[in-house]
C-alpha cells in the first residue's frame, strides 16, 4: 500500500488557515493603496440620461471618479468564451454608458484614499435615469414582453437542439409518456470570501500585477491583457488564498479589468473588496432553467426516450460561459441509463437580471435532476419501486465504454454496485416497511433516491472553449526539497495536500518535503485552472506524468553516479540502486541490506558537498544535488532536475453513485426533518479519502440548500428581493443532517492514476434524492412532483387541502 495516496492525510493548508495566517486579497497591504467603490444600477432596466459626478469628485479623500464615457474606448468588453451558432453577444462594457440592464450593473467608480471616503462619495453621484419596463420571467421573456435589447427584436440569445435518436417515434411507440414542468431556481454561489481585486501598476517597468480571488489565474491574465490592451507578458495575475469559488470565480469580471486600468491611470495600487450585497447582486448566479420533461417508457419500466424543452434564464448579458452552461445539461441527459433517443431543445433567454454561469455542477445538476425526477415519475406512473426502474435501465459494467444518445462515451462504471451498497447501508427494505407502518399511523415518511452519473475532469481541449489540458512542473531543489508548480488553482479543494501525496509516494520522499505552488502566472507555467472537477484528474495527472519524466532523467544521472547503465537502475522508496546487485542477492536467497533512511529536506553539510555514491545506491536528493552541481552528469545531458508536462486528456471521466434521503414531514406544519442520509460515491481512485468526504459533504449541503432553502428572487420590477443573507437562506450547520458516506472504487481508464473527480458530486447527486424523498412523503396525497425550494408552507397547503 502506498504511504500517502489513499490515506486520510490532514490538509497541509489548514494550520495556516485556521490560525488566521493565510493571505487573501484583502490581507495584502501595499503602501499608498487607493480604494475603489462602485455605483451600481438601482434599476433593472433604464436609460441613463445624465451622470453628474462633480460633487463626488470634490468630496474629501476622493482621487478620481470614472464613468462609462471615460473607459468605453479604453477597456474592452467583458468576454464570453462560449461559441454557439448564431449566438447573440451583447457588447457588455465594464461601466454602463447610457443603458443599464440589471440591478447591480456598475455605472461609475470612485477612487479614494480609503474605503469609507470612496463609499461616501458614491452617494454624491447624481444619475438621471429613465426607467424602462423590465422583463424578469424567463418564459414571458421568451414569448416577447419588454425587450432587454431593442436592436435584437426579441429576447432570444440562441436556440439549440441536441441529442440523437428519433425522439418523436420513441415517444409515440412507448406504452406511456410521463411529462412534467420543472424549475431549477436561480441560486447564488455565496463563496465565503467574496470577490476582491488589488491592482498595482509599475510605471517604470510598465508592468501590471493583479491580485484577484479567481479560479483561473492564467485564463484571466490572457483575457485582461486583451481587455486592457497590454502585452500579456507584462501582466501578472496572482491568486492568493481564495475562500471558495463554486464556479463563481471561473470568470472574468468587469471589476478585474477596471481596477487594472485605474491603477495604470493613477500609478498607484488600487483595491476593491466585494461586499456581500454586491456579491449577491453582481457575482454570477447559477441554474435558472425552466423546462418541460417528457419521458417515454414501456410497461415493464424500460425507458424509451427523453425530451427536454428548456428555457435558460441567461440574465442580461453573457459572462465567460453563460450560454454554454445549458449545453452541459444536454450532454448529461442520459443519466445513468440506457435511453435510445434523447433530445434537448434549449432556448437561451435574456432577462433583466444578473448573468447566470457556472455554479458547482454547472448544467449537470440540472440534467441529473431532470433524469432522476423523470425516472421517479415513471415509477409512480407504473406503480413500480423507483429502485427497480433504475436498476432495469442501467448499462452493465461490461457495456463500458458506454455510448449515450447525447454523444458521450462513459469511461467506466458499475452503477448497480453503488446502488446495492447504498441500499444495504440504508437497509432499504426495512425502510419501506417502516414507511408503510408509519403511513398507517398517519405519519409522512418519504424515501428518495438518486442514482447519478456526472461528467468530470473537464476535459479534452476539443470540447472546451479555451483548452482542456493542465500543466505541471516538478523539480527537486539542490537541497532536496520537491517543488510542484501546478496550473490548477485550488481554492479550498486541498490539492496542496493531495498533489504532495502523489509526489511524495512517487518520489519516495516525506510529505513535508513537497511544496505545491499555484496561482501566480509569473511563477507557474500556463495552466487552465480549477473547475469542473478537473484539478486532480487532469492537473494531478500532469503532476504524475511530470514526475515520471523527472524520474527518467534522475535515473540516467543516478546510473552515471553509480557507474552503471540506466537499464540496471531501479528506483524504490526514494533511492536508486543497481538492479544487478538486487537480482544477485535475490538469486542467492539473501535479504538485501536495508539502506539507512535519509531524512528529506535536510541539507547536506557544507555549501556544495559531493553527492554520495557509495555503490549501494543514491537517493533522489543526491541525484538532485549532482544534477545542479553538474560537474559529473552524463555527457550531453541537461543540468538541473525538473520536468514539465502538459496533460491533454482523451476523454472526460464519469463518476457516479447513489444517494438516499429519508425524511419525515410534520403533518401539522409541513416542517421537513431528515431521518437518514446515505451516499455512496464512486469517483474512481481516491487520493485522499478525507478530502473526498469533505467534497461530498459540502456538495450535499449545497444541494440541500437548493432543494429546501435557496432561491434568488427578483420582483416584477427586477429588484433583488433576496439581496442579503438575512433573506437568502444558505444551510447552517444545525440544518444539515448526519451523512453516512461510503464509496465504491471503479478506476477511470482515461488517466494513469484512474482518478475521476468529486468536487461537484454532491450538488449533482443529492438534490434529486432530497426532492424525491419529500415528494415520496407526500405521495399519499397524490403528489408526484414539487418545485424547489420545497418550503414547509407548500407541504402544509397540500396536506390541509386534503384534510
Amino acid at each position: 500500500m502506498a504511504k500517502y495516496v489513499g490515506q486520510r492525510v490532514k490538509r497541509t493548508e489548514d494550520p495556516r488557515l485556521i490560525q488566521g495566517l493565510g493571505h487573501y486579497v484583502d490581507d495584502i497591504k501595499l503602501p499608498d493603496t487607493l480604494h475603489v467603490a462602485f455605483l451600481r444600477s438601482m434599476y433593472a432596466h433604464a436609460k441613463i440620461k445624465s451622470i453628474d459626478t462633480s460633487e463626488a469628485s470634490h468630496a474629501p479623500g476622493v482621487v478620481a471618479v470614472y464613468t462609462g464615457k471615460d473607459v468605453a474606448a479604453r477597456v474592452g468588453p467583458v468576454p464570453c468564451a462560449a461559441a454557439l451558432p448564431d449566438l447573440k453577444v451583447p457588447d457588455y462594457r465594464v461601466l454602463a454608458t447610457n443603458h443599464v440592464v440589471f440591478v447591480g450593473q456598475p455605472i461609475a467608480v470612485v477612487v479614494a484614499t480609503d474605503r469609507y471616503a470612496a463609499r461616501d462619495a458614491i452617494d454624491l453621484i447624481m444619475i438621471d435615469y429613465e426607467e424602462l419596463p423590465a422583463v424578469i420571467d424567463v418564459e414571458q421573456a421568451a414569448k416577447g414582453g419588454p425587450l432587454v435589447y431593442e436592436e435584437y427584436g426579441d429576447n432570444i440569445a440562441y436556440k439549440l437542439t441536441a441529442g440523437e435518436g428519433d425522439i418523436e417515434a420513441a415517444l409515440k411507440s412507448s406504452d406511456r409518456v410521463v411529462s412534467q414542468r420543472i424549475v431549477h431556481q436561480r441560486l447564488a454561489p455565496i463563496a465565503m470570501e467574496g470577490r476582491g481585486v488589488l491592482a498595482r501598476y509599475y510605471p517604470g517597468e510598465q508592468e501590471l500585477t493583479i491580485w484577484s480571488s479567481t479560479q483561473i489565474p492564467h485564463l484571466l491574465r490572457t483575457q485582461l491583457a486583451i481587455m486592457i490592451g497590454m502585452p500579456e507578458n507584462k501582466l501578472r495575475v496572482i491568486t492568493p488564498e481564495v475562500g471558495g469559488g463554486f464556479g463563481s470565480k471561473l470568470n472574468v469580471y468587469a471589476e478585474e479589468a477596471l481596477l487594472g486600468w485605474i491603477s495604470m491611470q493613477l500609478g498607484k495600487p488600487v483595491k476593491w473588496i466585494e461586499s456581500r450585497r454586491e456579491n449577491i447582486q453582481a457575482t454570477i448566479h447559477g441554474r435558472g432553467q425552466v423546462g418541460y420533461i417528457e419521458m417515454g417508457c414501456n410497461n415493464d419500466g424500460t425507458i424509451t426516450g427523453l425530451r427536454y424543452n428548456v428555457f435558460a434564464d441567461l440574465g442580461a448579458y453573457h459572462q465567460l460561459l453563460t450560454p454554454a452552461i445549458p449545453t452541459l445539461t444536454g450532454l448529461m441527459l442520459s443519466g445513468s441509463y440506457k435511453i435510445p433517443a434523447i433530445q434537448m431543445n434549449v432556448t437561451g433567454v435574456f432577462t433583466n437580471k444578473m448573468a447566470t454561469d457556472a455554479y458547482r455542477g454547472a448544467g449537470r445538476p440540472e440534467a441529473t435532476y431532470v433524469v432522476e425526477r423523470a425516472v421517479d415519475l415513471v415509477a409512480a406512473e407504473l406503480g413500480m419501486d423507483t429502485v427497480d426502474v433504475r436498476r432495469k435501465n442501467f448499462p452493465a459494467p461490461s457495456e463500458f465504454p458506454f455510448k449515450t444518445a447525447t454523444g458521450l462515451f462513459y469511461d467506466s462504471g458499475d452503477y448497480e454496485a453503488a446502488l446495492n451498497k447504498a441500499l444495504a447501508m440504508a437497509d432499504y427494505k426495512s425502510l419501506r416497511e417502516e414507511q408503510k407502518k408509519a403511513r398507517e399511523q398517519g405519519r409522512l415518511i418519504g424515501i428518495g433516491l438518486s442514482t447519478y452519473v456526472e461528467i468530470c475532469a473537464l476535459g479534452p481541449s476539443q470540447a472546451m472553449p479555451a483548452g482542456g489540458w493542465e500543466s505541471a512542473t516538478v523539480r527537486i531543489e539542490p537541497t532536496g526539497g520537491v517543488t510542484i508548480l501546478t496550473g490548477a488553482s485550488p481554492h479550498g479543494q486541498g490539492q496542496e495536500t493531495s498533489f504532495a501525496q502523489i509526489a511524495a509516494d512517487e518520489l519516495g520522499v516525506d510529505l513535508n518535503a513537497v511544496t505545491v505552488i499555484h496561482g501566480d502566472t509569473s511563477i507557474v507555467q500556463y495552466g487552465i485552472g480549477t473547475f469542473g472537477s478537473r484539478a486532480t484528474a487532469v492537473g494531478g495527472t500532469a503532476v504524475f506524468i511530470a514526475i515520471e519524466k523527472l524520474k527518467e532523467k534522475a535515473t540516467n544521472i543516478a546510473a552515471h553516479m553509480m557507474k552503471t547503465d540506466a537499464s540496471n537502475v531501479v528506483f524504490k522508496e526514494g533511492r536508486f540502486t543497481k538492479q544487478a546487485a538486487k537480482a544477485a542477492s535475490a538469486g542467492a536467497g539473501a535479504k538485501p541490506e536495508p539502506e539507512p533512511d535519509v531524512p528529506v529536506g535536510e541539507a547536506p553539510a557544507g555549501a556544495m558537498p559531493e553527492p554520495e555514491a557509495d555503490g549501494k545506491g543514491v537517493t533522489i536528493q543526491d541525484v538532485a544535488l549532482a544534477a545542479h552541481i553538474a560537474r559529473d552528469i552524463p555527457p550531453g545531458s541537461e543540468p538541473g532536475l525538473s520536468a514539465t508536462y502538459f496533460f491533454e486528456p482523451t476523454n472526460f471521466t464519469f463518476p457516479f453513485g447513489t444517494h438516499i434521503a429519508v425524511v419525515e414531514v410534520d403533518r401539522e406544519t409541513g416542517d421537513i426533518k431528515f431521518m437518514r442520509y446515505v451516499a455512496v460515491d464512486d469517483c474512481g481512485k481516491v487520493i485522499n479519502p478525507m478530502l473526498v468526504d469533505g467534497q461530498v459533504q459540502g456538495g450535499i449541503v449545497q444541494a440541500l440548500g437548493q432543494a429546501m432553502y435557496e432561491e434568488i428572487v427578483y420582483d416584477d420590477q427586477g429588484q433583488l428581493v433576496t439581496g442579503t443573507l438575512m433573506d437568502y437562506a444558505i444551510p447552517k450547520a444545525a440544518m444539515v443532517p448526519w451523512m453516512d458516506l461510503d464509496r465504491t472504487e471503479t478506476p477511470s481508464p482515461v488517466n494513469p492514476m484512474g482518478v475521476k473527480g468529486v468536487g461537484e458530486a454532491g450538488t449533482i447527486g443529492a438534490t434529486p434524492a432530497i426532492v424525491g424523498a419529500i415528494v415520496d412523503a407526500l405521495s399519499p396525497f397524490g403528489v408526484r412532483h414539487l418545485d424547489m425550494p420545497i418550503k414547509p408552507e407548500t407541504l402544509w397547503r397540500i396536506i390541509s387541502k386534503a384534510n
Partner: protein
Amino acid sequence: MIPAQFDYLAPKTIDEAVGLFAQHPDEAKILAGGHSLIPAMKLRLAMPQVLIDISRIKDLAYIREEGGQIRIGAMTTHYQLESSDRLREICPLLPECAAQIGDVQVRNKGTIGGSLAHSDPAGDWPAAIIALDAEMVAVSASGERTINAGDFFVDMLTTALGPGEILREIRITTPSERFGQSYLKVPQPASGFAVVGVAVTLTRDSNGVCKSAGVGITGVASKVYRATAVEQAISGSGLDEQTLAAAVAHATDGVSVNGDLYASEAYRRHLAQVYTRRAIEAAASRAK
C-alpha cells in the same frame, strides 16, 4: 456594506452615558452588543450621527436576585443568560429563549437590553419578556423610571423609551412554585429570526388547574404581543386537549398577521396556533 460617518462616544459610567445622550437625544443611538444596529448601519438603513457605546460601562452585565425579583443588567449577553444554571432553575424560559437566538457568535456578543430596545418584531426576547410581564428600568438625565413590558413595545423598532433614555435593567418577578415555561420557535432559515416564536409561562395548582398564564408571541405581527385571549381561555382550565385546541384558535386575535416570502399570512397564523399549543403543552408538562 460600509456605514455612513458617525461620531463614536464611549462613556465609562452610566451617568456619563446618560449625560452624553442628553446632549444628542435625536442624533445618537446606543450601541450595546451591536448585532442589530451595526448590520443596519452597514446597509445604511440606519445612519445615526452619534454612537454611544455602553459596553465599557462596568456593572451593566449581571443576573441578580433581589426582593423576589430577578434583575438582569441590560448588557448581559444572550450567552450569559443561556448558560446560567441558576436561571435554569428559577426561570428556565430565559435560558431556553436565549439558546434559540441567532448563532453562537450572536449569542456571545448580543445583549438582552440591546435586543429589547431594538424591538425587532421577530426578535426572541420580547416574547419571553412580555410573557413574564417584566418591568423595564429606564434611565435618563432626569432620573429613573420603570416601564411595564406590555407598554414597552410600541411598534416595529419602536419602544416606549423616550429621547435620551437608556434601558438599564430588566426585572422579572421570580416565578412561584408549580410553574412551567417554554419557548418554541420556527426560525426563518436565512436570518434565524422568528417566523413565529411563542413564550409561555404558567402556574398550576395541586389539581393541575392553570392558575395564571402569560403567552407572548413574536414574529407574527408588527410588534410582539400578549395573546390575552389565549391566556384567559386556559386560565382556570385543566389544560386539557379540548381547552387548548379552542384556546389557541385565538392566538392571533386582534393582530394584523404578517406575510412574506417564507410564510404567508395564512400559514403564519396557522403556525402561531400550532406553536402556541405546543408551547403551552410543553410548559404544562413542566409545571409540577
